């Protein structure tokens, strides 16, 4: 098998040995210099491994240098050092803040405020009823409307949400999964009704149902038909909406659910590969869609490990796409990724300290070569972010971008003995985990047998025990505790549900009911027959079918999934 990483560096005397085995020179340093030093000042107990449990040497030298890394360059296969030859020297990463709460009107105002503050792309948070495919006036939605995101039940809501925002000029990301197809169709229908040309509309739907089964648990129908709907979008999207990223394969939620960085990397890439495989199995040429699959990773506390994770992700993906799937278009090989600082790392204690955490994590995202970035607001362990807190988080990115100088050299940490070693180690460990998934029959099997739930449950429990025991210091939580002044919080008005119910009633009263019924019948036919469902979702959106009407068709045809309870 052709392997761009096997050629050796001229003059490397150790090219037949494992890269990571320390040589006698380093051993001598350890014995003669380091030994006496730690005899005087013993090592801190927390200095021996990364957050993912990768053992750490006291120092890294050229003797740890990966032969492969020395040959890698930005913008070239396998893209470890970034997908763009010029890094951020030309275009900075997209500053994309996730926002959504209350009514479409309220979120639309927040969108305009963020754009006015210099944000360069939008990212939409939907409320739980929307995420689970219920209309705002359904009993299942009671008490949840507008709470943790914006409520969208039909095209009418979508038009209000993006009022005054040009869908050809601003790219929009939508965090939507189980109902990704109907919500995307509503967005596209909104754009069409404004006269936009779909070939010029850009954005991203998260549309990664596998990680819902694995981690965030906002699934509706079972895994197999869920993946089929995703594949429908992958087949349809690049043809009809060529600037749209149809799937954002997400490690973020896997990490938030408690996985390690290594698990996040392995599970995410395995999920991405599953979508590619299922689409190729349908007879679709990989180069027609692979460039429209993007990624979304967490950036957590362990600075170098997070940077290494993003670099390893690009390397593994490039090799899989080129070597295993035979993609010929270099754009198919590149892993483009959004990154978000770790919500789970935010503390309710001394919340202003979160500003510092977010800055460090965001810096890791940038040094890891993220293509777009969300920075969490300091108040998010307490409630949805206030506008002021979200603005400070955006300003944090702007300071990194414009004041720190880190964006002026491409992959500035490339060549660091430690980082290159850690990148190789993340790659090695992630591939070993992917092999464990494969041995079970792939990701759908590992979902249904509870393996992912056990893996993540064990990791999150181990992490909590380490914090409880004080083996992992969290400032303000198990060390340096202090009373802190209270911070102002975002409140969601209980009148949201009423306002949303009223708009739904208007939609139902004023739409052409025969057209809506015919569109839903057409969707049912697509679901049953197995033909691509996206044209039917588009028809439903234009006919003002509600979200729940469409999701109920899917529930009826495919059934509702219940996961095995794994503790």
């Amino acid at each position: 098998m052709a392997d761009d990483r096997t050629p050796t560096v001229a003059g490397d005397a150790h090219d037949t040995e494992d890269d990571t085995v320390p040589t006698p020179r380093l051993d001598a340093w350890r014995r003669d210099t380091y030994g006496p030093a730690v005899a005087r000042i013993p090592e801190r107990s927390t200095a021996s491994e990364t957050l993912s449990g990768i053992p750490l040497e006291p120092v890294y030298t050229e003797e740890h240098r990966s032969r492969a890394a020395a040959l890698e360059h930005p913008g070239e296969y396998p893209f470890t050092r970034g997908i763009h030859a010029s890094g951020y020297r030309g275009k900075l990463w997209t500053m994309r803040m996730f926002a959504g709460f209350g009514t479409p009107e309220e979120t639309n105002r927040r969108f305009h405020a963020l754009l006015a503050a210099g944000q360069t792309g939008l990212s939409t948070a939907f409320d739980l009823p929307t995420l689970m495919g219920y209309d705002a006036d359904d009993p299942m939605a009671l008490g949840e409307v507008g709470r943790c995101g914006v409520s969208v039940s039909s095209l009418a809501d979508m038009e209000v949400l993006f009022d005054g925002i040009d869908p050809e000029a601003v790219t929009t990301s939508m965090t939507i999964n189980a109902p990704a197809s109907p919500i995307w169709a509503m967005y596209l229908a909104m754009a069409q009704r404004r006269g936009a040309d779909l070939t010029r509309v850009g954005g991203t739907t998260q549309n990664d149902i596998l990680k819902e089964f694995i981690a965030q648990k906002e699934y509706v129908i079972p895994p197999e038909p869920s993946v089929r709907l995703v594949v429908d979008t992958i087949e349809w999207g690049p043809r009809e909406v060529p600037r749209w990223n149809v799937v954002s394969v997400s490690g973020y939620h896997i990490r938030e659910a408690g996985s390690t960085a290594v698990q996040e990397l392995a599970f995410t890439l395995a999920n991405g590969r599953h979508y590619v495989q299922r689409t190729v199995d349908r007879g679709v040429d990989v180069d027609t869609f692979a460039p429209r699959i993007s990624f979304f990773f967490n950036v957590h506390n362990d600075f170098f490990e997070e940077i290494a994770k993003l670099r390893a992700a690009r390397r593994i993906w490039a090799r899989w796409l080129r070597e295993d799937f035979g993609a010929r278009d270099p754009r198919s090989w590149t892993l483009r990724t959004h990154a978000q600082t770790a919500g789970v790392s935010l503390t309710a204690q001394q919340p202003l300290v979160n500003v510092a955490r977010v800055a460090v994590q965001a810096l890791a995202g940038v040094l890891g070569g993220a293509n777009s970035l969300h920075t969490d607001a300091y108040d998010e362990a307490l409630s949805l972010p206030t506008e002021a807190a979200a603005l400070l988080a955006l300003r944090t990115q702007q300071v990194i971008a414009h004041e720190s100088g880190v964006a002026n050299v491409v992959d500035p940490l490339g060549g660091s003995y430690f980082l290159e070693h850690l990148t190789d180690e993340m790659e090695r460990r992630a591939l070993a985990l992917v092999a464990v998934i494969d041995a079970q029959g792939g990701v759908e099997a590992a979902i249904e047998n509870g393996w992912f739930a056990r893996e993540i449950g064990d990791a999150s429990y181990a992490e909590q025990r380490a914090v409880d025991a004080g083996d992992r210091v969290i400032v303000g939580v198990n060390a340096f505790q202090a009373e802190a002044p209270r911070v102002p919080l975002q409140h969601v008005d209980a009148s949201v549900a009423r306002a949303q119910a009223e708009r739904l009633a208007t939609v139902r009263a004023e739409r052409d009911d025969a057209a809506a019924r015919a569109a839903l019948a057409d969707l049912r036919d697509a679901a049953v027959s197995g033909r691509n469902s996206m044209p039917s979702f588009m028809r439903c959106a234009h006919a003002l079918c509600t979200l729940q009407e469409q999701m109920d068709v899917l529930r009826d045809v495919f059934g509702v999934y219940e996961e095995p309870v794994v503790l």
Partner: protein
Amino acid sequence: MSEGPIRVVIAKPGLDGHDRGAKVVARALRDAGMEVVYTGLRQTSAMIVRAAVQEDADAVGLSVLSGAHMQYFEQVAAGLRTAGSDDVVLFGGGIVPDDDLPALREVGVDRVFTPGASTEEIVRYLRQAVAERRSRRAGAEAGR
């Protein structure tokens, strides 16, 4: 029943699927020697009350991260009262602003843990709260 291991129901009410906290707490309580029933996701308040009664639970813990905590705690507290189990210790955790704590206490929520709480703290609290409940029950029976 006032002897034997503490019996706890840990539940995830509503649509929210974020189950990390619920699972970590359930495991910690189990490791501390308690008998723990974890309900799984998407439970209605009625299902949670039914589980508490069926399991003869000393305590019920709800995990709510979606912001809809007021309604779920209120419903479960009311359900426990209707079932004659209002002495079951009702506690919980999640993204709950301090401002909501007095109102939650008013509807009968004994304690709410927010991000950063240690599992040891939760175990310690539960042992004490259940011991008090059991001694109140024993006292009531003795006085009958």
